[in-house]
């Protein structure tokens, strides 16, 4: 186990170093000048020169890159060029919002998706299955920006069930963005669950369990459901990882102050290099962490993997 952890840690460190290099190089190469975002429309050359010097933007790429690495080594994500705020302070303020929305959307998606997929497979070709399949297709093919607008038009503007589209004052405000963000995942999870359960239903050990006279509920739960979890967890984990990196469309529609808006509007929109570099790195760390957790969950779920690791 220790060896496994050390090996993973070294891989992560190398991946992250590559990420810092690629982001810095991209940031250096993309068209757009952060100084123009800072100075506004009518700037004097002396002011531009002063800002460029202060931000090291007059230096060659390699000098800028090593200055960035040096900062990182001191656990400093740097300050935004445009707002002068420490990037880490903004992350600390906004990441909990992103995490809250991601958890909420993922819980919604997992519960709905697994339930729909599971029952749709158990009662294959019944009405339940046909209706579920229709909803799965609809869920997968409806983009977030369409669903978001439909949701608030119906629930807020038309029937006034929810008082406000944006806002952040009560957990009520979570409902709309959760459904908007989670629906597509729910549909994917339902589809994966359905096909996995259908596969497992045909397996010999299920027939054996049934012929042993085990109750139907017991077989469904302990033989079919538990064994179909591994691929479902993969989908859930990957979607959760991407939600943790911010969901810019949902955040834009519902005015949700997560890190997606921070990366796209503040970072990329203004060419705010420290924000882009640090946030890409942060998202990479989150993704690696999530993947690591998924691996651990696999071990927990699948005794064969545990044995294999023990042999090595």
């Amino acid at each position: 186990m220790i060896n496994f952890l050390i090996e993973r840690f070294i891989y992560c460190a190398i991946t992250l170093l590559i990420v810092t290099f690629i982001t810095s190089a991209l940031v250096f190469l993309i068209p757009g000048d952060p100084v123009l975002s800072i100075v506004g429309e009518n700037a004097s050359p002396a002011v531009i020169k002063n800002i460029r010097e202060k931000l090291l933007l007059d230096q060659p790429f390699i000098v800028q890159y090593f200055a960035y690495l040096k900062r990182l080594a001191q656990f400093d994500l740097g300050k935004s060029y445009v707002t002068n705020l420490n990037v880490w302070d903004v992350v600390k303020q906004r990441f909990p919002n992103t995490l809250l929305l991601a958890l909420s959307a993922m819980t919604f998606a997992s519960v709905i998706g697994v339930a729909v997929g599971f029952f749709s497979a158990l009662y294959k070709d019944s009405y339940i299955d046909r209706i579920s399949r229709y909803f799965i297709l609809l869920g997968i093919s409806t983009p977030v920006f369409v669903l978001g607008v439909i949701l608030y038009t119906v629930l807020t503007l038309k029937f006034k069930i929810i008082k406000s589209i944006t806002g952040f004052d009560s957990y009520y405000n979570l409902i709309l963005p959760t459904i908007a963000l989670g629906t597509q995942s729910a549909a994917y999870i339902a589809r994966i669950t359905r096909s996995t359960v259908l596969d497992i239903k045909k397996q010999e050990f299920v027939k054996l369990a049934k012929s042993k006279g085990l109750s139907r509920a017991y077989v469904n739960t302990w033989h079919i459901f538990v064994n179909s979890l591994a691929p479902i967890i993969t989908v859930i984990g990957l979607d959760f990882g991407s939600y943790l990196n911010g969901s810019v469309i949902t955040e834009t529609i519902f005015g949700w102050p997560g890190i997606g808006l921070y990366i796209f509007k503040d970072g990329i929109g203004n060419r705010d290099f420290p924000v882009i570099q640090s946030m890409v790195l942060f998202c990479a760390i989150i993704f690696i962490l999530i993947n690591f957790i998924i691996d651990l969950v696999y071990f927990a779920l699948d005794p064969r993997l545990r044995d294999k690791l023990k042999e090595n």
Partner: protein
Amino acid sequence: MIKSKNIILIVSCLFLLLTAVFNLNGCSCSETKPDGGASTNQTAAGGKSLKLALSSDLTATDPALSSDVTSGQVLSKIFEKLVNLNNDLAIVPELADTFEISADCTEFKFVLKKGVLFSDGKTILNAKIVKDSFQRVASPDTVSPRANIFDKIIGYDEFVSKKSDAISGIAVNGDYEITLKIKEPFAPFLYNLTMVPASITLNDNGRVIGTGPFVFDRKSDGAKLTLAKNHHYHSADKVFIDEIVFKIIHDQMTQISEFELGNIDILNLSTINVNRFVNDANRAKYNIHKQPKLNVYYIAFNFNKNIFSENLRKALNMAINKDELIGSLMKGTMTAARGPFPPSLGAFDPELAGYKYDPAKAKEMLASEKPESLKFDLYYKSSNENEDLMQMIKEDLAKIGVTVNLKKMEWAALKSEIVKGNLPAYYLNWSADFPDAHNFLIPLFHSKNMGAGGNRAFFSDAAADSDMNKLESTSNPDEYKKLARKIQKDVVEKAPWIFMWHEIEYAASQKSVEGYDVPKIYSMENFVNVKINR
């Protein structure tokens, strides 16, 4: 031994770590109070709250660092300047009680209002604070994007190069008198002092505070920020609002829906949404406001590229049917431009003919042009508003035999390419910082401002340059206006742009809002005298 128990332990540890780092305490709705200070400005329960929408978050909470409209809109409610603009766009004293200008227009003497308190409730405004405040903006250590608004003052260069620790041209006489001396007459100098970065600020232990009608109550959490009434404001009896809540909503449709739900009190309408509100049903439900803005939209030709002859530029100016576009597409939210000056500008020249729509004549003029010059790339910022418009412009130009390749780009990339001089022609706009002809001529057409300075066409004309230099030092208002009009006429004659239009801004407000009107310049608006009847 690997057991599922160990794995659960590791996952729990990771989660605990995450919890510790981000201090997840269940509710993410925690808001940050700025350290101390604002505690005296608590809004009484049930106080009058004005709710507004912002399309983006603030980039600055310090006026010295502000260069964008959003930050300026918010900061103009917290900070005041020595002088400001009134509704007729004339310069009037704000923190100054009176001001005098010397006969040669190089000395500006301000006598300050007495007894003006900063929002800390302790410090009284004095001349030394004003001097420190200006020097803070000018200092290269502050890295203010607008440090140059003070560069005409004597001693600025020595101060910036750190040869002197004060700007010698700012003289403090006693507690309430301050004189600014400039190197040579500079007509728009007082206008510079009406801009947000020229606000009078006090550095209160690292926190920048002001004397305006409101103070920061809750800093932005990315979703909203709140200003509370400043109870130490010198005219507090004219402030009828207890707090202003700015909701940060990036999406236009969401803003409109929130307004219709009554969650926003005042809404700025973009061109494509005006029609939704300016109809009879909505006129009865809401107050609709209208204000001609001080701006100009144009298609600039890059003079560095040398691909557009004067003849071609003039013909292109005659080829676009602006009135038709304004009627059909822009729904009357624009006024056709004849030159850079908008009609609400004092120096606007009603006699300037400009270029009339005349496709037949334009086509005739193009007969002498080489066929390869009748094809060019036209760049524009990618946005909902621009899509249909650019298509229609393309069709208009096709009618006279000019082929345009439309190229859309994301704004930051487009701006940087334009400033570098890499693109041939582009659709842009310019909004004035202050209501003076200077702001529509020198940044846009003087050769010293090519590129980032504002002259995006890289237009250079020795005669116009020399006239503009003369304009800067002209102090007689009549002569000033005459000269400004002459320069405008000469520039229009050279057709460095296709002069498109000037925007009329529309806003809708709830019936409960009283005394509000769209400001002519964003930095004027401070919500003094605005009431809410709820």
